[in-house]
């Protein structure tokens, strides 16, 4: 059976180019970056093509090695897959573009390896997303994880320890997942998701299936940093180099969330996690706590990047909450939030990257007057921040809206309240920063006449012995702006996205 | 597959695992861990998983023990527990 090669190209092109990058790095370093960009663009295009296929013809199957499903590995790309794959590849392309200057300045000799691991990380994440085989998923999970450990560890001072920490948790998570797969295998004999979903309904009462479910849930929860298993996240993402945290932070957790949705909806019968076992209930509670916990801890932070880490935990909480509502709107919210949060977080992390790239501060207390120095970056920051807060028409609002709808539909008033309260907490979080950046003159200008404060930037030659901060180079700035524009336009197009894609991604009987 | 042998091997494995954790010297710990891998490998061979056993022998008992020892030599043998 010959089918369109796009599903596999999503993975294989970056995979091969990752190897080529290393070779290129041995020959001529300047080749690495274009190679990376080319491969990432190729996978974006393939994801687009796939999405198009899926939209026009329904689920796309691709048999690797030509073997029929339960025996060979199969790529099953439905709306959910295609959607998440596009998100992952597109965001990583943008981050990839922005990585150039940062990587080449911070890791001059190692850039080829960083790019290689970068591409491998993306490949791993994409592999997780497109596959239809539970074990294949594990393999790609590990590719992504190992690349992630390494990339995080090359960050600043505390990074290796944070990375080691992450590795311990990550391994536990992956192993739990593997155990879950093993438990499923022992009662069904199959590793194919579609096959499993056919076999599992008859086995729902088996203790093994229950244990498998528990293992899977905990394993994925670790990977997606769901409270209380998020412990690794703040350190890891704080100390990672900027482009890495911009890539890893938004995407890894989102892909984890995707896996959870996939397992809950496709592999197990959806009624399983809602009715048979109280998984939805647990997810709700954990999600609710994650939201509050993340927000409160984020409030306590002084370091902007670390704060983003905790915000990320809260965002994961949203997704879990949405899944936990166990109805169409809640799931729609969760899936939409994968996209939205990916965009927002990537943008925010990249903005931190841009600021630190220019020698700017990471402590929020020293953000004063940044808006004059990096007007466009800060404008993008405002947009993304508003999106996290959930101000329409930015995209963050829409996913929150679906989540609230989901909560209302399932009459979970407490969690609706949590959702609403969290957006207030987020508002405090981000408006605090906005205030600093926009309404307080910067440290070195406080003595200078207010009139000299030129809001459009450009001509500020204030005497200062510090690093002169101005707009980041275009390779960083443009992705930031694109993402900010994305945050806005995705918000407005969310209707299309939901009715065109996400609607089909959720089983019909919801 | 003889369950008596199986059981003995399992016991060995358990003992090695515990020992490698209890020893207060990392180098010995690494060596015992190599032994653990070795017993594991025999166990798998006994269970009929020859390929896995082969791999474990090459990797677990072999290369990774070497890595381990190298790493410990390059860092420290000291441990408090």
């Amino acid at each position, binding site marked *: 059976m010959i089918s369109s090669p796009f599903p596999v190209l999503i993975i294989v092109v970056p995979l091969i180019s990752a190897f080529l990058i290393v070779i290129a790095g041995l020959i001529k370093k300047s080749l690495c970056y274009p190679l990376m960009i080319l491969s990432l663009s190729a996978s974006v295009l393939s994801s687009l093509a796939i999405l198009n296929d899926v939209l026009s013809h329904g689920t796309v199957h691709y048999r690797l090695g030509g073997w029929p499903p339960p025996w060979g590995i199969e790529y099953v790309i439905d709306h959910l897959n295609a959607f998440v794959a596009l998100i992952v590849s597109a965001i990583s392309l943008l981050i990839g573009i922005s990585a150039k200057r940062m990587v080449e300045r911070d890791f001059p000799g190692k850039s080829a390896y960083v790019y290689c691991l970068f591409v491998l990380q993306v490949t791993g994440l994409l592999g997780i997303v497109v596959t239809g085989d539970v074990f294949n998923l594990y393999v790609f999970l590990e590719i992504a994880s190992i690349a992630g450990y390494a990339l995080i560890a090359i960050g600043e001072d505390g990074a290796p320890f944070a990375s080691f*920490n992450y590795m*311990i*948790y990550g391994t*536990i*998570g992956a192993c*739990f997942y593997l155990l879950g797969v093993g438990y499923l295998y022992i009662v069904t004999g199959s590793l194919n998701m579609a096959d499993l979903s056919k076999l599992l309904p008859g086995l*729902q*009462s088996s*203790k093994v299936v*229950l*244990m498998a*479910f*528990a*293992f899977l*849930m*905990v394993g994925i*929860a*670790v990977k997606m940093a769901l409270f*209380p*298993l998020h*412990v*690794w996240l*703040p*350190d890891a993402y704080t100390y990672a180099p900027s482009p890495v945290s911009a890539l890893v932070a938004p995407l890894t957790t989102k892909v984890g969330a995707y896996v959870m949705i996939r397992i809950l909806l496709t592999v197990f019968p959806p009624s399983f996690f809602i009715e*048979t*076992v*109280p*998984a939805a209930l*647990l997810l709700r509670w954990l999600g609710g706590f994650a939201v509050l916990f993340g927000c*409160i*801890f984020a*409030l*306590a*932070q*002084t*370091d902007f990047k*670390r704060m983003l880490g905790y915000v990320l935990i809260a965002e994961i909480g949203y997704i879990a909450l949405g899944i936990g509502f166990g109805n169409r709107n809640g799931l729609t919210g969760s899936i939409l939030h994968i996209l939205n949060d990916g965009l927002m977080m990537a943008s925010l992390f990249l903005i931190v990257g841009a600021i630190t790239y220019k020698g700017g501060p990471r402590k929020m207390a020293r953000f004063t007057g940044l808006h004059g120095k990096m007007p466009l970056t800060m404008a993008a920051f405002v947009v993304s921040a508003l999106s996290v807060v959930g101000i329409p028409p930015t995209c963050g609002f829409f996913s929150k809206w679906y989540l609230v709808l989901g909560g209302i539909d399932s009459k979970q008033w407490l969690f609706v309240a949590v959702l609403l309260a969290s957006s207030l*907490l987020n508002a*405090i979080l981000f408006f*605090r920063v906005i205030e600093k950046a926009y309404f307080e003159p910067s440290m070195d200008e406080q003595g200078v006449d207010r009139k000299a404060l030129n809001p459009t930037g450009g001509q500020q030659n204030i005497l200062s012995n510090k690093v002169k901060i101005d707009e980041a180079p275009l390779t960083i700035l443009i992705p930031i702006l694109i993402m900010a524009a994305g945050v806005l336009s995705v918000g407005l197009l969310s209707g299309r996205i939901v009715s065109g894609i996400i609607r089909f991604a959720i089983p019909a009987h919801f | 597959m003889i369950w008596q042998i199986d059981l003995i091997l399992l016991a060995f494995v358990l003992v090695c695992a515990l020992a490698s954790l209890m020893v207060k010297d990392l180098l010995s710990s690494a060596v015992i861990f190599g032994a653990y891998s070795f017993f594991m490998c025999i166990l798998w061979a006994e269970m009929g998983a020859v390929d896995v056993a082969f791999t474990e022998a090459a990797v677990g008992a072999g290369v990774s023990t070497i890595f381990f020892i190298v790493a410990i030599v390059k860092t420290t043998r000291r441990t408090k527990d």
Partner: protein
Amino acid sequence: MINPVPPAFIFILGAFLVPFLKGRPKQAYLLLLPLLGFIDLFLLTMGIEWEIRFLSYDLVLLNVDRLSLTMGIIFISVGLLAILYSLRVKENGQHVAALLYMGSSLGVVFSGDYFSLFFFWEIMAVASAFIIWYRKEKPSLDAGFRYLLMHIIGGGALLTGIILKVVSTGTIAVEPLTAGLASTLILVGFGLNAAFLPLHTWLPDAYPEATVTGSIFLSVFTTKTGVYALARSFSGNELVAYMGGAMALFGVIYALLQNDTRRLISYHIISQVGYMAAGIGVGTALSINGGVAHLANNLLYKTLLFMGMGSVIHMTGKRRLTELGGLAGKMPITCITCVIASLSISGAPGFNGFVSKGMLLSSMAESGRPLLEWMLRLASVGTFLSFTKLCYFTFFSKNDRIQAREAPLNMTLPMVTIALLCLLTGIYPGLLFSILPHAPAGYHAYTPSHIIGVLQLFLWAGSVFILARGAFSPHSWIILDFDYFYRRGFQWVGGFFTGPLNEWRLRIQSWSSSGVNHLALLSRNPLGLLEMTADGKLRAYDENFYRKPMGLGVLLAILLLFLYSLIYLISS
């Protein structure tokens, strides 16, 4: 053919041109306006004109009948005189306010529906308040403010009544009203302007505080529109009739007690309005005629009195009877005109007051209300007494310390004119009768019995005054009026608003602010609560404090696994 416009427009629109003129042209312009008004009045034809559609209502801006025409003529003519009198005033604002005031009262007079009536009514209130304020002194500012508040309250009552009427009857045309909540409220509204008894306090409070020229305008329009409105809607209302009687008496009694000249006259306004109200309340053709005639006369002599007192104040700067005296020689014209006015108001034969009072009294008698009749007669005695007092202590008693000259021509001229008019109408009542709303069916003013009766009264009262002059000599007492309670009420309420209420607000505000501040503080480090040290201070956030050994996380993972499995195994 020039179509007539509502006279109100001439004045209201005309008012806005005043600030752009200066000097002589302005004076000419000011005099031109009432003349235009006259021309306009003569062009008017009876009936309803200027019916315009405003929102969902048909407004009648020009409802011309004999009554309104009478009022129009009276208002414009007195207005002309008042303008003449105040021609020297330099401040544009005062002219503007006066013209607006005049215009709006004319508007009230000619409006044929309650909507436009109310419309002009309110403008009148505000414009008159400005006239009071223009004296620019603390007492007048406050009094003006009180005046405005009272009128807003009255306006509110009126509005309520009107709206109730509109809702219940569906029409807004001005028409006689019968009993009911709506009419009561409208009555209260009109009554406030007409200085009905407990609502009269604004009048003696504010009028004496207005500017010299301003008080003339004030005396002309506000109360008279009230009376006019009563005549339109409440003629033949017993309550109004007896209220009128009571007012007549009350005003006189309080007037007798006053020391301030203009305050004295102000109380007399109440009293005189009482006469008119009584006339209207009785509601026969004669009594209404009497009321309106009295209105016209009253306007004349009251204006004259205010002018006289105004020129006294203007020339001497003094306003209390205790400080005045002996001006007869120094200001002869003023003195004579004032005496004429006093006689008129007292209803001496030959003066116009005699005619209208006579009409009123005989209408009372005819309709069989002896009580009312006697109330009015008694008031009449009081009037005579009080004006004797006024004239005596202003012009004839001895006072050597006072320096004065005669008032300027533009002041004396209208005074003389009005004095002549008083005499004229007194002597030829037909002149008056020709403009009355109802055809004067065979009423003769100068019947012997009437003349004798009046003279008897005067004689008696005069002897009382001579005998007990000491008792009437002015004192600088504080005289308690209802006013006291209102002011106290206002003070208390205002004090409550600015005091305790605001304090509550501040307290609530400070709670909320401190709440927000605490939240802000807490939001800076919500975990500070957890790390609160023994001395209760929030510690700065320290991320290392929260970096637990990784074993804890693993423990959490395994515990979560345990929990999950436990729950699943149990629940399935």
